[in-house]
C-alpha cells in the first residue's frame, strides 16, 4: 500500500474531541438516577456461591410446590 498516503489518511481519520465534550458527558452522568438496589443484586449475583445458593433455593421452592400439588391426590 502507498504508505505515505495511507498514513495521511489514517491521521485524518483521528477525531479531535470538542472542548466541552467531557462536560456534556458529565452533565448526562449527573442526571442519571442514583444506583438502585438492582446494582446490589448484580453485585450479589456476580458471586458463584450466591448464584448456586439462589439456584438451590429456586429448585427447593419448585419441588415444594410440585409436592404440594401431588399431595392433593394422596391426602384422602
Amino acid at each position: 500500500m502507498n504508505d505515505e498516503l495511507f498514513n495521511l489518511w489514517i491521521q485524518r481519520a483521528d477525531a479531535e474531541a470538542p472542548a466541552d465534550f467531557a462536560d456534556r458527558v458529565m452533565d448526562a452522568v449527573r442526571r442519571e438516577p442514583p444506583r438502585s438496589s438492582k446494582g446490589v443484586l448484580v453485585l450479589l449475583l456476580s458471586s458463584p456461591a450466591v448464584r448456586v445458593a439462589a439456584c438451590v433455593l429456586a429448585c427447593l421452592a419448585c419441588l415444594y410446590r410440585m409436592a404440594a400439588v401431588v399431595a392433593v391426590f394422596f391426602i384422602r
Partner: protein
Amino acid sequence: MNDDLDAIRRVLADDVESFRHLVERYQRPLLTLVRNLTPPNTDHEGVAQDVFLAAFRCLASFDPKRSAFSTWLFTIARNRCRNELARKRPVVGAELPEVVDLRSPDRAASEAELFRQLDAALDALPFEQRSAFVLAQLQGLSYEEVGQIEGVGVGTVKSRIARAREKLRCLLHPAEPHS
C-alpha cells in the same frame, strides 16, 4: 491502567465526579472509533456520549481480570455502532467507488478525492472487516485486543484486516496499464 481502576473504584463508591477521568482519557479514541464505524450523517458525539453513559450504568459489571477497561469500553462502543449502522442502513448494498488516478495533473485535488473515496470504501466494507481494521489500524490495538472486542480468534482478526486492506489497496494502486 491503575489510574483507570482507581477511578472505577471511586465511581463505584458513589464519587461520580471521578468518572470524568475516564471520559477525558478515552473521549478521543472513542470518538475516532465512532466516527469511523458509523455513517457520516450520524450524530457521532451523541453515540459516544451514549457509550460513556452505558459504561457508567454497567460499571459494576466490569471485571478487570477479564480485560482492560479500554477493551471493555471499545466493546460497548463497537456493539453500539453496529446497532446504529443496522438502524440507519438496513440494506448493505454499497459498492466500492471508482478508482481515482493519482497520476492526474492536479495531484492535491486527486489526494482529497482519494481520501473521500477511501472514506467511502471504508463505509462500504462489511461491518466485521471495517471494525477489525479500524480497531487495529486507527486505534493501534493489538490483534489479541481486537479479538477480545470482536469475540473471535487472532487468526480471524488477521484475515478480516487483510481483506479490508486488500479492498482499500485497490484505491491506492490503480491497475497499471498492460504493455
